[in-house]
């Protein structure tokens, strides 16, 4: 085991693994840019949808059902079907487009459902008082509902981002790069050192994403809404395979 870890360390200190299109910086760059792009586009689509339906208190059943079916949808299937639907099989370098579409499809549901739940479950009395104070619907949304919904909205963004980072790894199975390449190619060459090195990078990237977004969440959530204690809530409503 020590010997194996020594080999992994050796892999990371090999200069050749830090250069070129198969080098760590390039793969890390590909993976990050793809993930950020997918989450950014998902935010642009999902946030307005979730917030609007939440504000109107409409369409909750439909959104929840879509998200439940989404949970049953294996990421690998979304990747494969996306590739076929776009008709891009076997075109070198075109793996990026189906990968992006698949990641986008998988990134949207957690953001929509959490934004919807966050806004729609704001205490009706609080809304009522805001309206009674003479606020318009838009003001209620901006000054009351959105700040109160922020913890859940951020939780959705976090779930979505971590999931995108994970699924981008699987996208190496299509003809796309990213850190998953090390794992897929390593398995193909029966090179466990390369597989392990790839897994380390993917694991670190996922954990960093989680930790950074948790820190952002703490910063943007109003003081009064932060719960200091660590009480296990029941179901993480947005859990899904990745």
């Amino acid at each position: 085991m020590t010997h194996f870890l020594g080999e992994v360390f050796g892999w990371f200190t090999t200069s050749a693994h830090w250069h070129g299109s198969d080098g760590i910086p390039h793969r890390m760059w590909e993976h990050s840019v793809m993930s950020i792009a997918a989450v950014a586009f998902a935010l642009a689509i999902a946030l307005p949808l979730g917030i609007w339906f939440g504000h109107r208190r409409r369409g909750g059943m439909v959104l929840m059902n879509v998200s439940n079916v989404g949970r049953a949808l294996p990421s690998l299937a979304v990747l494969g079907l996306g590739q076929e639907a776009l008709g891009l099989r076997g075109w070198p370098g075109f793996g990026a487009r189906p990968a992006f579409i698949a990641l986008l499809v998988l990134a949207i549901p957690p953001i929509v459902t959490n934004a919807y739940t966050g806004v729609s479950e704001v205490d009706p009395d609080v809304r009522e008082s805001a309206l009674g104070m003479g606020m318009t619907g838009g003001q209620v949304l901006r000054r009351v509902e959105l700040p109160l919904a922020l913890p859940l909205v951020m939780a959705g963004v976090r779930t979505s981002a971590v999931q995108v980072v994970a699924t981008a790894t699987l996208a190496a199975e299509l003809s796309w790069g990213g850190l998953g390449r090390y794992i897929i190619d390593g398995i193909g060459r029966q090179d466990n050192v390369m597989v392990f090195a790839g897994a380390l990078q993917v694991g670190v990237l996922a954990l960093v994403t989680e930790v950074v977004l948790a820190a952002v969440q703490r910063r943007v959530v109003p003081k009064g809404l932060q719960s200091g204690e660590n009480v296990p809530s029941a179901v993480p409503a947005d859990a899904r395979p990745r």
Partner: protein
Amino acid sequence: MLAATDPWIRWDWISRHGDDITAALREHVYLTVVAMAAGLVISFAVALVARRWRWLQTPLLGFSGLLYTIPSLALFAFLLPITGLSRSTALIGLTSYTLLILTRNIIAGLDGVPADVLEAATGMGYGSTRRLVRIELPLALPTIMAGIRIATVTTIGLVTVAALIGQGALGALIKEGIERPFRTPLVVGSVLSIALAIVADVALALLLRVLTPWTRKRAAP
């Protein structure tokens, strides 16, 4: 280009590969059931320990949260040097993923049992083990079952990823469909995996209804 003309489904391929498809489906169910059973046993033990010694709750949930955050393919890859491209690798990885959801829901369910109910049970002479089995677990069952449903559906989806380490049952069909210019196995694997998840989810929901008849009476006006 072949990809453009290949139909989504070739029924003759399905009828010729009926046995392979059945075997993949059976393997999928097997991997899910074993991972869920192992996950439930471990999660119960962890939940009981975390409730007995409360200061352990944060580190225990933190560790299962860490496992849950690591992408599935990376988790399988970490195990490769030890267990190789084997079924054990798939099962260990899949089991690890159930722990966070199951443990959280078991703890939340048990914590949700009202204190006066516990007191009444103790007053009636229940010992702590008998109270746990006869009183606490049945009352916590709806929350625990909610966790089991999410974990089961999640696991059924994750099994497909194990195809990339040479296992993966229906995932192997999906992988075949991705790698060859032939869509039928991709469609068959995807559809069966989704169908299996939906069937399992509905079956578990029905099981909960049967097991907790007292929750139904409340709904009547």
